[in-house]
């Protein structure tokens, strides 16, 4: 066992992920050599994951304010007003590295962490999503990681009791060495009952709640910021194990405790557990904090201060309580069978003091731990622009029917049913739009009765676009989430982002980051979707190969009347199919080229935010006005894939009559031009809609009619909906049934 007073060698410093100049900064700050526990505390607070030292400068450029924003980034989760005194709380967070090492437990603890962030603010979780990126299906690790991650996401969320209503799954060779597991959670609370982490008052008890502390994940937060190499396997024993049962108890106990009025401040123990949570509570409240580790409930004997301070055991909380309500608080926790211990108090010294066995193990300036963390302006280079592909120069398919079937049966475009059927997406009884459409819709009852509201949820980003042009790709991620929310009739109100990139110490990677954030920010401003929370995951690189830049977006929309939503399914024979938005046949970085021919070439489709806005507003208004029978945005695979998805969802075909084309047919059918939707309406309504669209300056063209059991595109394609479904539904189960 390591003693606390051992000499701090350069090797020890390096093992803690601190650079020599960062260590010098520590020496300058405290004026002496740190103890081992102190070194551990600094390493936890100053690693990339907790300090955002490479990203802070750029995160500040994102729009985070808006009329509805009650709490922006900086707390456990963002809070957005949804009227009637209610607010939605949400955030997305990564658990990439742990999931690569132990897929099941990595995913469970990722889901657990994000749920805790949400209920720590006082909200009851009402929806979860998960954005997953895996390596090529043929890579030897992929199958194992997919099955473990999906089982883990389900295993935790299902038991906890939150509906998992949406997400994304991508496969690409650039994730062969680093999978991405980004978990989103949203909760609901009364806007005047938000709980924060800022401690208040001197001499207030600091209380530890939840599960016991073990040696789990020690160095976990540092691991999350370390690049992998072939020795990573050796880091395995630090794997944390999730206990959804304990989390469910923690949820109920925490909410009950908050309602009792005993809670002054609350912070969950996430990355770097006790250290991060305690420092944050004290520093935010301009208070000192003293911990007595003798009182910390431990799972294993002989745990040192160092281990307790860095343990990432799950399902734990730290609270500052009103002293006279301590007993009442304890009774609530006992009722739920959870540990409860007074482990310290707030002080007026602005010091973070840790005592163990009567000895001072650490005594540090509490504000400096956060405020003085290094902040870097890392060198970056502007990403190179790729040429625009001439659609006429791209390959046409030999057989449209085959091309469509192959696309629908490809790893990236096939149905995700195999995934979401393992997630309880119906619990709580409020799921109005289930997975499989554009955005999920969850009912929200008004506090005083009346017609129920709805919240739309979607996860989006197209990493291949971001790789090809980080700025346009960043814009596109927001634009796609905007479209998905509009398509179900919800008004986009805010987003959370999970920025997954490679090693920021490489100027090209930093350049991707900078440009992507410029795009995200611009799109959020133009579409009035402030970013209220988020997470950054860097160093997603193995042996020098970085992931595709993946700024995953979780977006939330609001409906005044949830009954007004529509789905994507072709529903009624004779309905007119209307294509909304302009098509020029953008082939660069299209799914068509990538999935069918393995080609990743050209500039991705540019996003005109003004057009997105105008088009999106028009479609959403039409949905809300009850004019449409179905709506679907166009994304991967373009028009033809969208039509096929609508046909499959409704088990009904359509007959499409091609308009006059000034581009190759395959570019029209598979091009991925932005700001487009396909909607259906009755013939009478469709005529009016097209007129109204013209008045609003939104291109809209009737392209066919719903009906029959085949999707028919002029003379070029005639395919039974049953055949489409068969191909679309079979890739995932087929792949997963192999071992």
């Amino acid at each position, binding site marked *: 066992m390591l003693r606390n007073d051992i000499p701090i060698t350069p090797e020890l410093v390096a093992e803690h992920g601190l650079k020599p100049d960062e260590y010098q900064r520590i020496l300058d700050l405290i004026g002496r050599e740190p103890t081992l526990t102190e070194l551990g505390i600094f390493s936890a607070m100053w690693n990339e994951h907790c300090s955002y030292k490479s990203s802070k400068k750029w995160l500040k450029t994102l729009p985070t304010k808006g009329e509805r924003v009650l709490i922006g980034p900086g707390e456990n989760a963002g809070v957005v007003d949804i009227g009637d005194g209610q607010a939605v709380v949400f955030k997305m967070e990564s658990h990439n590295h742990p999931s690569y090492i132990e897929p099941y437990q990595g995913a469970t603890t990722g889901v657990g962490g994000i749920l805790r962030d949400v209920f720590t603010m006082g909200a009851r979780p009402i929806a979860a999503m998960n954005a997953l990126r895996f390596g090529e299906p043929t890579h030897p690790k992929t199958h194992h990681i997919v099955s473990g991650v999906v089982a883990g996401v389900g295993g935790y969320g*299902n038991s906890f009791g939150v509906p998992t209503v949406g997400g994304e799954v991508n496969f690409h060779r650039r994730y062969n060495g680093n999978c991405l597991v980004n978990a989103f959670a949203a909760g609901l609370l009364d806007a005047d009952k938000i709980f924060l982490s800022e401690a208040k008052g001197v001499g207030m008890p600091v209380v530890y709640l939840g599960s016991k502390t073990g040696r789990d994940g020690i160095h976990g937060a540092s691991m999350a910021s370390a690049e992998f190499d072939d020795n990573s396997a050796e880091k395995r024993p630090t794997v944390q194990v999730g206990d959804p049962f304990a989390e469910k108890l923690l949820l109920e106990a925490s909410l009950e405790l908050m309602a009792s009025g005993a809670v002054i401040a609350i912070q969950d123990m996430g990355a770097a557990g006790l250290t991060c949570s305690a420092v944050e509570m004290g520093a935010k409240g301009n208070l000192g904090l003293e911990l007595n580790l003798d009182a910390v409930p431990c799972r294993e004997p002989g745990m040192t201060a160092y281990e307790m301070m860095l343990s990432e055991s799950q399902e734990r909380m730290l609270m500052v309580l009103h002293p006279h309500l301590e007993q009442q608080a304890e009774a609530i926790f006992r009722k739920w069978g959870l540990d409860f211990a007074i482990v310290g108090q707030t002080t007026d010294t602005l010091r973070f003091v840790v005592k163990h066995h009567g000895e001072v193990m650490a005594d540090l300036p509490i504000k400096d731990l956060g405020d003085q963390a290094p902040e870097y302006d890392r060198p970056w280079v502007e990403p190179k622009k790729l040429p625009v592909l001439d659609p006429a120069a791209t390959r046409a398919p030999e057989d449209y029917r085959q091309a469509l079937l192959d696309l629908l049966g490809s790893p990236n475009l096939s149905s995700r049913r195999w995934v979401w059927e393992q997630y309880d997406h119906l619990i709580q009884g409020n799921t109005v739009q289930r997975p499989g459409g554009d955005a999920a819709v969850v009912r929200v009852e008004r506090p005083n009765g009346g017609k129920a509201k709805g919240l739309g949820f979607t996860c989006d980003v197209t990493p291949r676009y971001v790789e090809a042009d980080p700025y346009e790709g960043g814009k596109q991620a927001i634009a796609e989430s905007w479209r998905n929310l509009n398509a179900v009739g919800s008004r986009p109100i805010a987003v959370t982002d999970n920025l997954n990139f490679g090693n920021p110490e490489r100027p090209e990677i930093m350049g991707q980051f900078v440009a992507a954030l410029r795009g995200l920010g611009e799109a959020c401003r133009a579409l009035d979707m402030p970013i209220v929370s988020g997470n950054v995951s860097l160093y997603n690189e193995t042996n020098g190969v970085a992931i595709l830049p993946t700024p995953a977006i979780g977006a939330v929309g609001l409906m005044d009347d949830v009954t007004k939503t529509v789905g994507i399914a072709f529903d009624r024979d004779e309905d007119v199919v209307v294509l909304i938005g302009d098509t020029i046949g953008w082939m660069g970085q299209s799914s068509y080229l990538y999935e069918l021919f393995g080609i990743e070439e050209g500039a991705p489709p540019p996003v005109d935010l003004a057009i997105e806005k105008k088009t999106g507003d028009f479609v959403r208004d039409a949905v809300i006005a009850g004019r449409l029978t179905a709506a679907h945005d166009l994304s991967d695979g373009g028009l033809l894939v969208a039509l096929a998805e609508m046909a499959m969802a409704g088990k009904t075909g359509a007959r499409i009559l091609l308009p006059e084309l000034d581009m190759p047919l395959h570019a029209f059918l598979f091009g991925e031009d932005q700001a487009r939707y396909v909607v259906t309406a009755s013939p009478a309504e469709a005529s009016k809609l097209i007129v109204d669209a013209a008045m609003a300056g939104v291109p809209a063209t009737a392209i066919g009619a719903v009906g029959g059991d085949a999707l028919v595109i002029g003379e070029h394609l005639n395919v039974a909906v049953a055949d489409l479904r068969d191909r679309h539904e079979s890739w995932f189960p087929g792949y997963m049934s192999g071992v």
Partner: protein
Amino acid sequence: MKSAVLVFPGINRERDLARAFEVVSGVKSHMVWHTETELPDVDVVAIPGGFSYGDYLRCGAIAARSPIVDAVRRHAERGGYVLGICNGFQIVTEIGLLPGALMRNASLKFVCKEVRLRVDNATTAFTSAYAPGQVIRCPIAHGEGNYFADAETLARLEGEGRVVFRYCDAEGRTTDAADPNGSINHIAGILNERGNVLGMMPHPENLIESLQGGIDGRGLFESLAKVA
């Protein structure tokens, strides 16, 4: 209809179930914590879905040894109705109020989707609002719903018409493909001898409003409201 919804640590569909009782009968359910030893004066005791005690050891095993269970037993002995759904079904079998056991799904995976059920006995207190042989839609969400009973028990269940719900396809045919978990004889729900205890894996409480996609689950609660 007066109902009590039991709450064990780790149960998570108690609100869904209470809502169904309230929507259908207009009366709020009593929520009863597992450490209680007496039940309020109710007609129906309902045990909801979830993961009581994490479903660690065996699904429902630990909950079935809770203090409230004696009162549930007495309620059943008096002829009171007991409804166990999903984890509730598992708990009721662990208590011994229903025979057999629920094992891991044959796929070994948790599965959440809408299935079809055939009402094979529409003369019970739980199903009289349905037509005999009616095919209804119903959500499921479970990892261990694979019903098992030994041959003798099974013969009795079948012989006495105590298999109330069976997984089937849209035409009412019971096929392996339509069975989401591998249950023996495609059993989705069974009744005790006396007819006052029903256990079922599917969740009728999640399909009672058109917003949820349908109202096929209502019949079960309406049936109970008729007799209670």
